[in-house]
């Protein structure tokens, strides 16, 4: 970023931080990293007090602020092994989605919507399955972070965190191990002479298997053909379910999926349903890397000028709400390339064509390096 644009952003960031300085819990035990040209230009910084941190932020005005998930005795020592590890928060980073949406290469609001939905699903799973209460934070640019700050997770080692990361993404899931109970479908035995059909998720199941049961029950109850197809059921099976809904539900309750699903297809169907209720794509390294530093919640993101906003329980996410800067002042910019985007209105910037933009939009375009100051 050029000097002129950097100074412009820093002036606005400074005025924001004068009123809204984000401070992490246990500030003195955290390692900090700061960036001006890239997300982390240097790390291994620490601050003994709120005042020290404030002075640094208002003097140096970094565009990116990251802090350690770990708590250290000596946060500024290096290498990491000399810091005196005292535990760490658990964080999940969601920045990529496979969900279908109209994708746009530049500033994709669709991605953010899908990721927000997935993050809420993960938050729910963390609470219901693992018993972790988490805080949802917008990353300030492309995704979301879920922070678990609890004594329950503080002492977890790298291997335990890897297992948790695998659990939430269903990585390495072998359905045969998840559903080891061999059952017997009376109906199937009668119909096709097959015995010992593996039992699927049932009313008595727990955790994710219980949710898989509920997902299938919902699809059968509402005769949701699209969902049933997505789970891998064939046309014959779907028509059987439609004609014998009550019987299918009774069998489902006991885990006898073989009563309404081809036996050779069972594993695939189990897996599809379980993955529907438990598959969140996260950047696993963030979850298990104990020396990771991550964006400080409620700090500003130097590539957007948005706040890495902490979302309250039940709060709806709208990217405009994360815009740190308001105001009608018009700033003139020179676009560096053609770019169209929606952010508090529709914007069409054309390369080298002078454009007067409201300050928050100009700041976004400059931070994204799509525009320069004249």
């Amino acid at each position, binding site marked *: 970023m050029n000097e002129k644009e950097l100074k412009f952003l820093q002036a606005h960031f400074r005025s924001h931080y004068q009123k809204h300085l984000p401070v992490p819990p246990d500030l003195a035990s955290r390692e900090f990293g700061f960036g001006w040209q890239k997300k982390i230009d240097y790390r291994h910084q620490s601050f003994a007090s709120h005042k020290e941190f404030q002075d640094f932020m208002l003097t140096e005005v970094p565009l990116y602020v990251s802090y350690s998930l770990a708590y250290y005795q000596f946060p500024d020592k290096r290498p990491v092994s000399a810091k005196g590890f005292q535990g760490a928060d658990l964080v999940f980073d969601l920045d990529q989605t496979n969900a279908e949406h109209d994708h746009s290469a530049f500033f994709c609001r669709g991605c953010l919507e899908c990721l927000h939905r997935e993050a809420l699903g993960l938050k729910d799973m963390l609470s219901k399955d693992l018993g972790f209460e988490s805080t949802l934070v917008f990353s300030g640019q492309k995704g979301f972070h879920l922070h678990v700050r609890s004594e329950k997770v503080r002492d977890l080692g790298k291997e335990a965190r890897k297992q948790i990361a695998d659990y939430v993404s269903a990585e390495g899931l072998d359905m045969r191990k998840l559903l080891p109970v061999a059952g017997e479908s009376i109906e199937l035995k009668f119909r096709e002479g097959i015995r010992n059909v593996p039992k699927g998720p049932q009313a008595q199941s*727990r955790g994710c298997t219980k949710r898989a049961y509920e997902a299938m029950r919902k699809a059968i109850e509402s005769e949701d053909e699209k969902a049933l197809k997505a789970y891998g059921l064939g046309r014959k099976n779907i028509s059987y379910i439609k004609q014998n809904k009550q019987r299918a539900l009774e069998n489902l309750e006991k885990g006898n999926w073989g009563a309404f699903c081809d036996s050779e297809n069972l594993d695939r169907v189990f897996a599809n349903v379980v993955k529907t209720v438990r598959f969140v794509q996260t950047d696993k390294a963030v979850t298990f890397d104990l020396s990771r530093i991550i964006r400080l919640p409620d700090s500003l993101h130097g590539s957007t000028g948005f706040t890495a906003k902490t979302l309250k329980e039940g709060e709806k996410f709208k990217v405009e709400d994360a815009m740190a800067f308001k105001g009608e002042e018009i700033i003139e910019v020179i676009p560096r390339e053609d770019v169209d985007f929606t952010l508090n209105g529709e914007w069409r910037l054309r390369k080298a064509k002078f454009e007067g933009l409201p300050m928050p939009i100009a700041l976004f375009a400059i931070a994204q390096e799509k525009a320069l100051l004249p």
Partner: protein
Amino acid sequence: MYPFSREAKKYADQDVRAPDVEEALAFLRNPLAEETFYNPAKHVMLYALAKAILSCCSQSTKNKYAEQKTREYVKRMTEAENLEAAREFFPAIEKQDGKYVLPLGEYLSYGSSLVHQSVENGKVTIEQDELNALMRSAIKEKFLNAAIQDVPEEIRKAAAQLEPPSTAIQSRAKFLNLACMQYIAKGVDEGKRFYGAFGLSISAKRDGLPKEKAVSFLTEYVQRCRGTKAFTAEEAKGILDWVYSRDIGFSCSQTMDNGFEGEYCQKCPLNWKRRKS
């Protein structure tokens, strides 16, 4: 009484005699004798000595004997003993409807397959098989967890008896069959592992060992090495790759300088010092 339990501590602090070391070796090599099991004082002493012996062994030998013993203990446990023993490692474990329920944190301390467990509200519900697997890793870890300083020589010698001879060395190999290389191949301590791998790689190359065979030979060597920090098969392979891409001669003096000079050098056909004098 199981020797890894809290109760066993009251039998600790006994005097150890030389024949006890022999008995501890037999304790590791053979199935658990009933008379030992029902003699807590003796059982605890043998268990402690066995831990000391294993602490001097290579990683693969440690694993082999610890797994063997652990399996025996878990296999012989009755249902009641199982729950009691489980509480040594998982204090909050409960039995509910024929299954075991424990907090997630306790499961994660020894469990390795959370993705396959039934997890709800921070609690993991497991079947008997999974509890046995957890118990095996917990007991094994305790068996291998021995911080012993200044291990007596007789225990070191006993540990050496448990190490298997290297299988990968060809009988007609000239350099790999040297006593110093045989010594290295049995696994060396932290600080010598790199030079050990270097010496073995040079010998393997000079003996004309195909690279694939040399890789598996070095992998075996890595498993036998001892140390608190990891020395991986990849690191050893890196050394081997480097050696195999060059023409390096075997050097007796270099091997000695690297800390592998021993009594065996006196009888070595290549002994550089002896031949020089």
